[in-house]
Each structure stands twice: as structure tokens, then as C-alpha cells.
């Protein structure tokens, strides 16, 4: 079973051929990729996950499908804002050049995804009194809600299908989804239990 999992890993990797870049070139690629996305992180940033997947798995071949899913889970499980997943993706992008480049890339990517939205947020904080009653503000706030809603559903589906799931894995995901909506249990418990089920071989990729 695990052999199969690793085969699929290799197969996914084989489909995607990365452009060969120098280590600094890769760092520039990482920064240049995340910088503009920063301003499109609506609804707290989770809306970017499908785009992150496209970039790191399909476009630049930084990661395999399974690695992407793993990093998403890691970012969700770790304390702090889960949007820090960008640091992990960027680490994966430069991992071939060694852990040190991985770290440099992680810092570069995280800075790139945070800096533009931070600068905009500073402007917004300082001019909020003028913005508050503007019709632009009202239209922006109301209009972006439904867009965020649509994107979040697409993101959910993307993450769900990203790791090659067996029926029991799908069942686990749906059960966790229902529990997330109906209870206030910390999701860490769900991940721990599911990790255990995976460890004994009940959930496969």
C-alpha cells in the first residue's frame, strides 16, 4: 500500500518538469510569484489556497500533490496564522538547493506575501475615518463577500481532491467538515485521530 503511495508520488513528480534555475533565480521566482498575490488574499487569505496549489504543483513543480496536502495540514496544525503556509511552500521550492536555501526562500516568500497587504493595511488604518462612509467602502465590503464565498468552496474542493483519496479518506474529510460546523471541538483532535487511523493503515492516499 505504501509502495503504491510512493509510486504515485513519483508519477506526479514526473509529470511536472521544472525550469532549471540558479538558486538566486529560484528565490526571485518565489518572491515575484507571491508579491502580487498578496493583494488578492480576500477573506483572510484562505481564498489563495487553490492558486497556491496551481503555482507550486502545476506551474513551477516545486512540490508534488501529496507534499502540498501535507504542508497544508502542517500549517493548519501549527499554532499561529495558517496563512504562513507560504513559508512552507517557498521552503519546498528551494529544498533541492539544501535546507539553508529552503529557509532563505521561506523568509523571502513569506515577506512577499505579507508586504503589499501590510502596506495597504497601514494606509487603510490611517485613513479609515475618511474611508468609512465612502460608497466605495460599502460596495467593496458587500461585493467581495459573495466572491469570497465562491472561492472558498472551490478551495475546499481543490484541497479535498488534492491528495489521492480513497473512500475512507473522503469519509473522514466529510465527517471532519460536519464536526467543524456543528461542534466547537479543536480541529487538532480530528487531525490526531485521523493521523492515528492513517498510521494503522486505515486511511490511504
Amino acid at each position: 500500500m505504501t509502495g503504491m503511495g510512493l509510486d504515485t508520488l513519483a508519477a506526479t513528480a514526473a509529470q511536472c518538469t521544472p525550469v532549471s534555475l540558479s538558486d538566486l533565480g529560484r528565490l526571485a521566482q518565489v518572491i515575484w510569484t507571491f508579491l502580487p498575490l498578496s493583494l488578492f488574499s480576500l477573506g483572510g487569505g484562505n481564498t489563495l489556497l487553490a492558486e497556491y496549489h496551481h503555482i507550486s504543483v502545476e506551474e513551477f513543480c516545486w512540490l508534488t500533490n501529496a507534499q502540498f496536502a501535507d504542508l497544508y495540514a502542517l500549517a493548519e496544525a501549527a499554532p499561529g496564522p495558517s496563512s504562513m503556509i507560504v513559508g512552507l511552500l517557498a521552503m519546498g521550492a528551494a529544498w533541492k538547493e539544501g535546507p539553508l536555501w529552503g529557509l532563505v526562500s521561506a523568509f523571502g516568500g513569506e515577506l512577499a506575501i505579507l508586504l503589499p497587504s501590510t502596506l495597504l493595511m497601514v494606509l487603510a488604518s490611517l485613513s479609515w475615518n475618511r474611508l468609512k462612509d465612502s460608497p466605495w467602502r460599502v460596495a467593496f465590503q458587500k461585493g467581495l463577500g459573495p466572491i469570497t464565498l465562491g472561492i472558498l468552496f472551490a478551495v475546499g474542493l481543490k484541497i479535498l481532491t488534492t491528495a489521492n483519496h480513497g473512500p475512507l479518506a473522503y469519509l473522514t474529510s466529510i465527517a471532519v467538515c460536519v464536526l467543524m460546523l456543528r461542534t466547537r471541538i479543536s480541529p487538532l483532535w480530528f487531525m490526531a485521530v485521523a493521523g492515528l487511523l492513517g498510521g494503522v493503515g486505515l486511511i490511504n492516499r
Partner: protein
Amino acid sequence: MPPASEASRPSSPDGLAQAPGLRDLFIGMQEVALSSFGGGLSAWSQRIVVEQRRWMTNEDFLTGLTVARLFPGPNQINMAVYIGASFRGLPGALVALAGMLLVPFSLLMALGLVYFQIHRIPQVDRVLAGVVAAAAGMALSMGFKILDTYRRDPVALVLAAGIFVAMAFFHVRLIPLVLVTAPLAMAWYWPRASQQELR
């Protein structure tokens, strides 16, 4: 000054402490980040910034939450930026951001380094397969969580459904999608006198 109590929602500036300096901002945000390791970041942020340190009124804090949610960027991080910027402008924002992220980001980097070293070990991969299934359930719940807000707004639901289909089935990329749909949605929701009469 009395310790945090219910009198800790000062309605006048008199009840507030002195405006924090850069160092205070860094330490304060670090405290928020550390306190919220089990979750509930915005509640902790409110407790520390409004009730314990008395940097800002509850009203200002809630305004900050609104701005943080409205503008692009992770909400908790935007909140730190708002707090920092309110007192010390851009340097304050950057220092607050650094304070908020230092420990969690270092931890995540350590996790990442370990992950990339060991994830090919079959046993590790098996456990991760389970964890990933649970995490995917969390991702799936995000849309449902805010769905209720739009139950009585058919236009919003049609718009959201269109965006879902475009992304999930036609693989439209995020930036062009937002650039096209945001102006349309903003035009529809533009505050108009006629619309108000209809309601």
C-alpha cells in the same frame, strides 16, 4: 491603575494607558501570539490590547477588526498591523507584525525542516495521509461557515456559484477572476437610493 476588570472598557481617553512605543508593540504582539497558541487569537488580542494594556478603547479595537477583515491579508496579521500603525505608523506596523510572527513562524520553519527531511519515510507518510484527510475536511468547511450569511441574497448565491464553477471546472485563475467579478459585484452592491427604497 486597577488590574483588568469589567471597568476595563474605557469610554474616554482618560482610561487609556500611554501610547505604546515600538518596543511595547513588539512585546505586546508577541504576548498575543503566545497566548493564542490554543486558538482564539482575536479574543486574546482584545484581552491584552484593550483590557490589560489599555492601549485602545474597545470601540477602536472593533473598528480595527472591521478594517482587518475588509482589506486583503490574513485577518490576525492585519489586526496587528492596525494596532501598530495606529500608534507608530509604518514602523509600528512592521514591529507589531514581527512581534506577532516571530515565534509561530520560527516554529513552523522548524516543522518544515523536519517535514522535508522525513516525509518519505513510509510510516510518516501513512500518518500524514490521515492528517491530510482531516485537514481537507477543515478546508471544506470554510465555505459552509459563511454560507448562511447569504441565504437571503439570491444574487450573491448565483455570483458565488458562478465563481465556484469557473474555478473548479474551468480552472480560471484567481487574479483575472477577481479583477473581472469584483467590479461587477461592486456595481451591483453600490449603495443607491433606489435600492434602499426597494428594501
